[in-house]
C-alpha cells in the first residue's frame, strides 16, 4: 500500500511539475499580450501611393517622386538617410494603426531591376508614456495580425496574359467539364454542380518556373509605366522572434521594378510613361487591367 502511495505521489508531483515547467514553444500563443485591434484604415491608399512612388523611381522621375512624396504627406526622418514617414510634423496619429516607413534604396549596377527601389516597413502606433509613438518591434499577436492585414491589401488573382493564354480553345477539358468566359476578365470552369472562377488581376503570384526569394512571399504587379513589372516581396511571417525579449519585426515589403522579361524581349520604349493622375484616380487596383492593351 505504501509502495502504491509512493508511486502515486511521484506520479502526481511529476505531473504537477511538468505542468509548471512546460516549455513555451516559440510559436505558442500564450495570452500574456492583451488583444489589440489593429487597423489600417488607409491601407489601400497607402499601397496605391507606394506603387506610384516605385513606378516614378523606375522611370528615374526623381523630381516628381519627391513632389508626390510631399503631397502624400511623407517627411524625411531626421538623421536617417533616405527614410521617410507620414505625418511626422503634426503627429496626427491614432493608436493601433499601421503606418508605413519608406526607405529608398539602391541596388547598384545590375541588368534585371531598376537600381532605385523602395523598402517599406509597416510600423504600429502604440501608446507610451511619451504619447503615441510608432514602433517597428511588436509582440507575436500584433505581428501576426499586421502581416495578415498587409497580405490582404493585395487583390491577388491571375495575370491577364496567363489567363488568356491558358483558358482558350487549346485547353483540353476533362469529360463533363465546361469553360465559359463570363466577361473579359473572368472565366468559369464547371463540372456538374461544381464551378471554379478565375479572375484576372494586376497582382499575381510568381510563376512556378521563376526562382523564388527565400523567406518571402512574392507578388508580381503588372502595372502601368515603363517598368516591365514590379516584384513585391513580402517577408514571410516567422514564428521565431527576431529580437530579444521575444519581439517580432513588423511586416516588411520590398518593391523592385524589372527592366525586361526573362526572354529579354520587352523594351521599355514600348510603354507609355507612368500617368500619376490616372493611376491615382482609380478606385480599385483592378479597375484597369494594364496588360490588356
Amino acid at each position, binding site marked *: 500500500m505504501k509502495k502504491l502511495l509512493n508511486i502515486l505521489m511521484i506520479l502526481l508531483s511529476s505531473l504537477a511539475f511538468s505542468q509548471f515547467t512546460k516549455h513555451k514553444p516559440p510559436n505558442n500563443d500564450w495570452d500574456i499580450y492583451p488583444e489589440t485591434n489593429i487597423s489600417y484604415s488607409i491601407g489601400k491608399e497607402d499601397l496605391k501611393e507606394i506603387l506610384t512612388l516605385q513606378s516614378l523611381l523606375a522611370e528615374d522621375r526623381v523630381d516628381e517622386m519627391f513632389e508626390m512624396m510631399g503631397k502624400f504627406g511623407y517627411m524625411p526622418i*531626421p538623421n536617417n538617410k533616405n527614410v521617410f514617414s507620414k505625418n511626422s510634423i503634426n503627429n496626427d496619429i491614432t493608436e493601433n494603426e499601421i503606418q508605413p516607413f519608406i526607405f529608398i534604396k539602391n541596388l547598384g549596377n545590375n541588368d534585371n531591376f531598376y537600381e532605385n527601389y523602395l523598402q517599406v516597413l509597416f510600423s504600429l502606433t502604440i501608446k507610451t508614456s511619451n504619447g503615441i509613438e510608432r514602433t517597428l518591434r511588436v509582440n507575436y499577436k500584433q505581428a501576426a495580425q499586421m502581416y495578415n492585414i498587409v497580405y490582404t491589401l493585395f487583390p491577388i488573382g491571375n495575370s491577364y496574359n496567363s489567363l488568356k493564354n491558358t483558358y482558350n480553345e487549346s485547353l483540353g477539358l476533362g469529360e463533363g467539364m465546361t469553360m465559359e468566359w463570363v466577361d473579359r476578365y473572368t472565366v468559369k470552369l464547371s463540372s456538374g454542380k461544381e464551378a471554379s472562377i478565375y479572375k484576372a488581376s494586376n497582382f499575381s503570384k510568381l510563376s512556378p518556373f521563376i526562382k523564388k526569394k527565400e523567406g518571402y512571399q512574392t507578388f508580381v504587379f503588372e502595372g502601368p509605366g515603363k517598368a516591365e513589372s514590379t516584384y513585391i516581396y513580402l517577408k514571410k511571417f516567422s514564428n521565431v522572434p527576431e529580437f530579444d525579449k521575444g519581439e517580432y519585426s513588423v511586416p516588411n515589403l520590398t518593391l523592385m521594378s524589372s527592366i525586361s522579361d526573362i526572354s529579354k524581349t520587352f523594351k521599355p520604349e514600348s510603354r507609355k510613361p507612368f500617368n500619376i493622375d490616372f493611376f491615382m484616380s482609380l478606385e480599385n487596383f483592378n479597375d484597369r487591367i494594364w496588360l490588356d492593351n
Partner: protein
Amino acid sequence: MKTLLYLLIFIPLVSFGQSKKFKKDYKKNLKSPSFLFMTDWRESNYGNIVFNENVLSKIISNSVKYGYKLIKRDDGQFIFKDGIFKYIWLEKKITDLNYESFPGYSIGSVYKKFYFSSETINDAIVVKVETEISLLEYANVSASQIINYFEFVKNFVKRSYLERFNLESSSQKYDSKSMFDEYYDLVDIYKIWRINEINDYKIEYVLSIGNGTKQIKNKKGSYNNYYKIVFSIESSMTYLSDLAYEKVKTQSNESYNNLRFTIGGEDIRKSNIYDLKSMVNIFLEDCKKNNITTPLITTLKATFEPLDGNTIALSYGLDNDSAVVIKVDPEKWANASKEKRWYVLYHELGHDVLNLDHGEGGKMMFNFADKEYSWDDFFEDKKYMLNFVK
C-alpha cells in the same frame, strides 16, 4: 591729456544727442499709422496679432490703406504654403513719392508675410509676422541715409517689444535664409516673454531683427546696393517647428541629391574622371535607368588625345551602334570643372550612343560648350536629352 578731456566731453554729447533724436523720431512715428502697421506696433503693444482669431481679414483690408497689395500666385490665389503653415504676402512699392518716414526719394519695397494655421482667412490664427524692407542706394539716396534709417527702424522695433517683454536670451545667426531664398548677413535673435495679466499664462516669443545687402547691375553695367532689414515676431513654438522644418527640408534635399547623383550605384561626384571607360559605362547605366535600351557595345574606346582649337572631346561612333569611340583632350579636360566634364561627355555620348545631331535633344546637344555648367544645368539638360530619345 587735453585731447582725452575733449573726447570725454564730446562722446556723451554725441550719445545724448543720438538718444534725444531717437526719442523725437520715435514719438513722431508713433503718430504715423502707416509706420506702426509696417512695424507691427499693435502686436508689441496690445498683443493683438499673433495667436488672435479674426485678425487676418482686418490686416488685409487695413493694408490697402497703407499702400500694400496682396502678392498672388500664378493661378490667381493669394494663399501660399510654406512647410506646415500657410501665409499671405503683402507688398508695398516705395516710389510714387509716398516716402512717409523713408528717406526722401527712396526707391524700394516693403514685404510683409503673415504665417497662419488653418485653411481659410476667416479661420486663420496668425503664428508669425515677418517684414522685409529694402532700399536702393543711388544718386538721390546715399548708403548712410539708408543705414541711419534702418538703424532707427531696428531700434524702434526692438524697443517696442523690450519695453513690454522680459528678455530671456539673445543670440546671433549668420547667413539665415531670407524671404526670397537669399541670405541675410546677420540676424539678432531675442527670446522674450511676459505674463498675460488676464490668465497668468506665460507668453514666449522669438523676435528676430537682421540686415543684409544685395548688389544689382544697373543699365550702365555698374552695380548698386540694395540694403535690407528684416524683423519678425513669432511664438517660440512656431520658431522651433520652423527649425525642425528647416532640418527636414535639408534632409529632403540630401535625399534628392543622393538619388540624382547616384547612377549605377555610384555617386558621380566621386567617380574617377580620368577613367573615361568607367564614365562611359555610367552614361550607359543612366540610359538604362531612364528606360532607354542601348545597343550592345562591342567596341569601347575612350582615350586622351590632344584635339585642335577649343574642343574638349570628340565622338567618332555616330551611327555605328556597336562602337563607342571618344577622344578627350587631356589638357582642357584637366582644366575643366567636374560638372563641365560630365556635361561634355554626355554631349559626345549623345552623338555616339543616342545618335543625336546638334540641334536634337535640347541644350546638351548644342554645338558649343558655351559656359561653365552647374550640376543643376547638367541634370536639367540631361533630362531633356534623355526624354527626347525615349
